[in-house]
């Protein structure tokens, strides 16, 4: 019975096509607006130092067995000692850092700009779609799908009797939102601002400081380093080198 559902061509002309068109146009607009708003972000020297420090400490943790024990211990002491070790963050300073972060106006400004180019248009278009096109069945995909796809394709329609291959307008909006990335990279070049996932990842990286303060990463790294058991890998290597040389000789 659901198969009998016939979609009006007016729906195609007045819902499906305009919706896609608007999504594309908004994407392009956002690209240019964010290009306009993008601040040359000048990374803080201290932040760089901290991230590099974590990287270096991670190398030490991962490859501890490749250097002599003495070298490892002196490095660990250098990172972890209680007086001036690089990974050691005094307690009072740790709290300070967080407070500093929140009061940093640059950070807030950056956040706001990101919001402007990302969240605001999304909310607006969503509201617009919701207001004008709620409850439309906008399209039908030409192949059958299982029930699991219902929340993805028929968002906004609470009818279990409609076949899953029908797409509601709100779902069409979501599909466009996430599916147009490839199209944007075609028309706007690889590095366009519409790439939300990338942006979110970036945000995760940068804002890593916002929720979790860097002193936590530092002290986590410190604990990890403290736990490393040093067992030199090289004594075994001598035998392996011998066997390799034997192989060369025997061939």
């Amino acid at each position: 019975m659901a198969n009998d559902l016939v979609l009006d061509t007016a729906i195609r002309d007045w819902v499906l096509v305009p919706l896609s068109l608007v999504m594309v146009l908004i994407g392009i607009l956002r690209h240019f607006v964010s290009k306009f708003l993008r601040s040359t972000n000048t990374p803080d020297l201290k932040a760089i130092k901290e991230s590099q420090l974590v990287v270096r400490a991670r190398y030490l943790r991962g490859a501890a067995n490749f250097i002599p024990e003495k070298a490892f211990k002196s490095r660990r002491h250098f990172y972890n000692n209680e007086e001036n070790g690089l990974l050691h963050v005094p307690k009072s300073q740790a709290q300070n850092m967080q407070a500093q972060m929140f009061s940093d106006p640059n950070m807030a400004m950056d956040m706001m700009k990101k919001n402007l180019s990302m969240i605001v248009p999304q909310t607006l278009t969503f509201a617009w779609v919701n207001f004008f096109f709620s409850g439309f069945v906008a399209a039908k995909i030409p192949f059958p799908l299982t029930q699991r796809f219902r929340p993805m394709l028929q968002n906004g329609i609470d009818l279990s009797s409609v076949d899953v291959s029908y797409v509601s307008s709100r779902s069409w909006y979501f599909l466009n939102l996430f599916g147009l990335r490839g199209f944007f990279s075609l028309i706007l070049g690889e590095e366009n601002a519409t790439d939300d996932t990338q942006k979110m990842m970036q945000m995760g990286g940068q804002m890593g400081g916002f929720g979790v303060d860097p002193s936590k990463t530092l002290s986590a790294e410190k604990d990890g380093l403290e736990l490393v058991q040093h067992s030199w890998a090289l004594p075994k290597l001598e035998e392996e080198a011998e066997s390799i040389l034997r192989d060369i000789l025997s061939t």
Partner: protein
Amino acid sequence: MESAATRSHFEKLESKVDEGVGNVIEWLALVRRFKLRRSEKVTTHGCALLRDSSLRRKLGSEVWTVYEQVAIAAMDCQCLDVSKMCIEVLIAKFPNSARVGRLEGMLYEAKGQWQQAETKYQTLLELQPSDAFAYKRKVAIAKAQGNLGAAIEALKQYLDTFMADQEAWRELAEIYIALQKYSQAAFCYEELILMETANATWHLMYAEVQYTLGGLENLRIARKYYASAIKLSAGKNLRSLYGLCMCSAVLSQTKGRAKDEEGTELQSLASSVIMKKYKEKCPNKARLVTSFLEKQKL
């Protein structure tokens, strides 16, 4: 895979450009992309391109990148007037750009005006303290003047912040070796080994530094690292084989420690591998090598 294809495309394009028929714009872009040093060709072709106003228009906004590229290439060829011209165009377009500032500094360097270059980089650093490029150039200035001590200081200052930079550690190690500060160099190589555990070169260099330092303990460490360099290079690195032979020879000469039997085993294996290689690749020198290795065994 994709880059291998573009690479072969690039080589074809380059031969065409040399004949004067290829697409210079595309060639320049590929040179930039692969970070190649084709300074002479870039200067000649780039200059010809930039002189032609219709071609310049064709470049669009890419023209500034080409100006930058040609400026650097021209410095490399000591065509300082060409480079100066390019930089002047860039300054007119981007008066306050740090990127153009770097070019200015490099031009001073190319002219040998170290003091001006130094002040230029210093101002860049004041504007943007996290400018790794300016730090590195300062090291280069000190090195170019032959002032290795200052180079070390500058590098230390750089590494204090950018401590995960492999190239910088390597540079520092090499400078320390030049100054015969071997234990400091050893530290740098340890750092490099930590960053790239599978790179035979670092193991080899570390072994050599330890060998040079001498002393029983260091020699033992050296031999182990020679062994690991042999392992990582699958016995193909002749330098590490020789090193192992020398190192074991010294160790066996050290009196009172006769229990290094596995070491002598490894040494004889290494020397026979060296012999084998010489017999395969260079038979007329094999005799010389034999006598040298025999001497080591004694």
